């Protein structure tokens, strides 16, 4: 399905785990450990979700804990808000990124600020699972990147895993957190397997992860673009350019210190995301880096992003999404600045 080739060193073996399996396993762990946890959404029950992420959960935990809802995104989040106020720990799914838009009012005006509105009286431990981003040649509205929208909303926390281990750990963290979290699953990475151990979260909420160390420039990314940055770093290494790859993981709060520390070492940064350029989260990363590492910064932060156009149909997808080439060109620009 995905247009990203599985690198040879990650070829599937029997013991390896895909992100889709990792999320499923995390949900199983969470449903088992806390009887207040509920999983619901469109087609998550009997079908097990269009990506089979909730496969088997209804059979295992029953249709009171894992259930299908009618097709209405706003009500799904509204339902979660009411359930949370009655002591539950809801983990709703919205089927695709582009279908989160009908729920934006309930997300922004209700879920994100109910705790604030009630001066902390109303608990709001909701984790919204949102299959996100592009790269799978899907129909319209199935390839959107909403992180900039959500990161701007006070009261929300936002994360996006880039591999199965993080998918597992970040979901445990998100659901156990007593605040609303938007958990964005990169669809394009659902089926890529890695030999990883699924375990407890390794770092606190808000911490980034250095995927690869390097000294000439820092690549900053999240979700599926982390893997693409790794590919770029691999190629650059052949030319002796050592790129650090930082997986932001948390898009709110952003790990400002981690970002600044890396750029303080490398002096250069390139941020990569799928969303359109203007007012994308890359702008925030650029601003933060400039604010916190200005003295070390030897070139303006480069942004390699989708263009300011609606997410296109299949054949145009590779022309829209940041390519390894574009990342390397940006690296070159920053090195030659």
């Amino acid at each position, binding site marked *: 399905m995905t247009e990203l080739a599985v690198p040879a060193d990650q070829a599937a073996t029997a013991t390896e785990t895909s992100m889709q399996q990792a999320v499923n396993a995390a949900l199983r762990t969470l449903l088992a450990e806390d009887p207040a946890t*509920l999983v619901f959404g469109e087609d998550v029950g009997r079908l097990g979700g269009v990506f089979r992420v909730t496969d088997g959960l209804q059979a295992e935990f029953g249709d*009171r804990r894992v259930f299908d*809802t*009618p097709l*209405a995104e*706003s*009500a799904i*989040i*509204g*339902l*979660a*808000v*009411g*359930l*949370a*106020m*009655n*002591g*539950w720990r809801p983990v709703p799914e919205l089927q695709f990124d582009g279908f989160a838009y*009908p729920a934006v*009012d*309930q997300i922004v*005006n*209700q879920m994100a600020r*109910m*705790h*604030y*509105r*009630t*001066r*902390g*009286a*109303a*608990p*709001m*431990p909701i984790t919204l699972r949102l299959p996100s981003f592009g790269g799978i040649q899907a129909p319209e509205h199935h390839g959107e990147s909403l992180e900039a929208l959500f990161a701007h909303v*006070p*009261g929300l*926390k936002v994360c996006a895993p880039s591999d199965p281990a993080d998918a597992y750990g970040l979901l445990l963290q998100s659901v156990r*957190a*007593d*605040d609303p979290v938007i958990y964005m699953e990169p669809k394009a990475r659902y089926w890529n397997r890695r030999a990883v151990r699924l375990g407890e979260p390794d770092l606190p*909420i*808000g911490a980034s992860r250095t995927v690869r160390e390097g000294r000439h420039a820092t690549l900053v990314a999240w979700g599926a673009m982390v893997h693409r940055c790794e590919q770029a770093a691999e190629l650059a290494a052949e030319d002796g350019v050592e790129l650090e790859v930082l997986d932001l993981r948390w898009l*709110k*709060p*952003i790990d*400002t210190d981690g970002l600044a520390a890396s750029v303080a070492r490398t002096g250069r940064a390139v941020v990569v995301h799928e969303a359109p350029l203007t007012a994308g989260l890359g702008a925030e990363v650029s601003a933060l880096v400039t604010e916190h590492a200005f003295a070390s910064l030897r070139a303006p932060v480069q942004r390699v992003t989708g263009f300011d156009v609606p997410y296109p149909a299949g054949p145009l997808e590779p022309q829209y999404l940041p390519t390894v080439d574009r990342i390397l060109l940006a690296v070159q620009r920053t090195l030659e600045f």
Partner: protein
Amino acid sequence: MNAEEAAPAGPDLSGIPPELSRSMYRDMLTARLLDDEAIALQRQGVFPAYVSLRGQEAAQVGSAAALDTATDFAFPTYREMAVALTMGVDMVGYLASHRALWHGGLYDPMESRFGPVNAVVGGPVPHAVGWALGESLRDGPGCAIAYFGDGASSEGDVHEAMNFAGVFGAPVVFFCQNNQWALSVPVEAQVAGGSVAARAAGYGMPGVRVDGQDVAAVYEATRAALRRARDGGGPTVIEALTYRVNPHSTSDDPGRYRDPAEERRWRERDPITLTRRALERAGHADTDFFDAAETGARAFCEAARDGVGNAPHPAGSDLFSHVYREPTEALRRQQRVWRDEVGP
């Protein structure tokens, strides 16, 4: 329905315990006086604005009186002051919302089981369904009630909520106060078909229209709906026909859009007068009671007025206190910026 069509006799209290009918009267009267105080506070500049519920006291008190405040939960919008009062909400905390001290009010919505003031028309209605579903998932005894207006019924959220409630059989009552106006738009230009209760059939649930000036009728209808919900019978829509006799808010000018004669006609069907007469007719109350009720209400209102007028401003640091239950370092940094550059 217009003012004249409603039963001229007024509330029939024969099915209502005398003590309950008296306490409903007391709550209605108190709400009326408190509403007057609030308008005065706005005129004095203490409140930036206020939304009056005058004329809707029977709809609010009658429905709220049917709730079991130990188990049920009410989800208001922004005009449900008399519901709050009836449920025993701290009224200083409630009015604090109108003094703009805190958007959701300063009472504890979880303890009082009366949700925070919510300015999004239609927005809290799905919460009531979620809360109700949550109750039935644990086989709990509680019901939810969602308060919303005729205008709110146009919002997608209300439809989605009703459909969810129907599908899940959730123990929830959709209580629409059809006060004939949504700001400047009359119900006939708002509600296709003219009746919110009539929508219920399309979701396979009962829809009841009730005279919203008749506190007994409202109480009975709500009680029946709650009983049905508690017995596993699922949701009900109640549409209480009432009237917003005052402007939409203190900033509004109804002279621009409606005939004062209509207001006058509805003022004549004042729910408090009607209830008082019914109490007298039923022999549930005498002059002493009415005098005491008024004295008590006045004392209550004065205390609430003084309480809200003297309530301290929120601390600047409260900007940051409740954003998260588990605060982030990033927000703490911003709080430091605030402390250094603005506050405390």
